[in-house]
């Protein structure tokens, strides 16, 4: 069974017809070709598939695509401001070597961007709680914590500079 949907992804309106068995992650990857969203576990544990749904982050492997009619979704593809420029969180991840294999990174970045939007200057404890839904098997998390702090500082500086 297939159902037609109207969804807005990264600001662009799409009309798609999805298999009723599809998850949001499958819709993004297979129907819309947005393969930046990774699928690690399909069980809501790893967080690699994290996207923003109507302003709140969710694990897209555990959201049923047919429910997405009328939804607004943001994925990792929309985080960088332009093709040649990275988001401060992405730059901090590079600078602090907060990734190795990179599989968890799209979900991590989505979660960190969401965290810093709600809490621009988080403590270590708040970062740990904010990223509890994202697993990384390479870094041991310490570089990720450093990257979040570095990104928070850079965003704060940018903000002051722009005033």
């Amino acid at each position, binding site marked *: *069974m297939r*159902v037609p949907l109207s969804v807005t992804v990264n600001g662009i309106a799409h009309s798609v017809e999805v*298999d*009723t*068995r599809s*998850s949001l992650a499958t819709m993004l990857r297979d129907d819309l070709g947005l393969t930046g969203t990774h699928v690690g576990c*399909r*069980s*809501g544990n790893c*967080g690699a598939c*994290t996207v923003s*749904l109507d302003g*709140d*982050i*969710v*694990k897209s*492997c*555990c*959201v*049923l695509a*047919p*429910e997405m009619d009328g939804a607004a979704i943001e994925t990792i593809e929309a985080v960088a401001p332009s093709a040649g420029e990275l988001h401060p969180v992405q730059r901090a991840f590079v600078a602090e070597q907060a990734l190795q294999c990179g599989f968890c990174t799209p979900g991590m970045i989505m*979660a960190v961007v*969401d*965290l810093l939007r709600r809490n621009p200057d988080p403590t270590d404890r708040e970062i*740990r*709680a*904010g990223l*509890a*839904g*994202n697993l990384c098997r390479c870094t041991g998390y310490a570089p990720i914590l450093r990257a979040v702090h570095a990104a928070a500082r850079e965003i704060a500086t940018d903000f002051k500079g722009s005033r």
Partner: protein
Amino acid sequence: MHTPELAYFQPGSVDEALALLAEWGPDARLLSGGMSLMPALNLGTTRVRALISLCQVPGLRSVTAEDGLLRIGARTTHADLARLPVVRETCRMLADAADGLADVQVRNRGTVGGSLATAYPGAEYPTVLSALGADVHTRGPRGERRIPVAKLIVGSGQTVLAPDEMIVAVTVPLPVPARMAYLRYSRIQGNYSTVNVAAVLDDGGGRLAIGGATPRPVVVPLTPALVDGGAGHPSDSAGSALMHAASAACADACDDHLASARYRRHLAGVLARRIVDQARANGEGR
């Protein structure tokens, strides 16, 4: 998803959802937040032929406090409970419990009704809501039912809900006593609790609920003598009595990869003492 074909429905009312549930029987499942059902479908541990999404049923995602009841719609998310002022002001323990479960992404999507219907041992709401004396409100072909949360769950993943019945709301009697507290213990942040405890104290004693230790949460009525057994109290005999009562209530404790039954019974006693003390301290504004 391990099914050759999946029928999908998006009813616009509770009546319509119930009609679909009656029509499809055990082949269908209601989809609320999907935080337990979707992983089970993805991994093939649960199979269905039809999903009935509640995402377009109006009125299920709302919270009100009136006529002495905090009424929580079944599709209210954990994040809603954690951030809505009406919950935090009337029942802070519930807001804190919602804020501490799972992780950000799951809290944004998972729902109160879904969690209760899933009835996983170690979930927050069965414990907290049992201690609060809350009721679940259901609808089905035979009308409405009001079931105490403490009687909803009969085993791991098992409830007294009929297959064609659905949870529409939860109500908590107000005002909630100031002397209340909730505590969870899990080895990993975000996992279901190995053991969790909630205490609500009043002049006649109160209620202690223990979750995660046993397949279904247990409620221990607290006498004033047992309340005196909090960890900060000098009387060792009262403390021992409280610990013993809590451990004894967990006679059929779960024995699994997380913890042995003996460990869970012991932990239930330790946490009981700690939480009764904390509840008492909360009442003194500490």
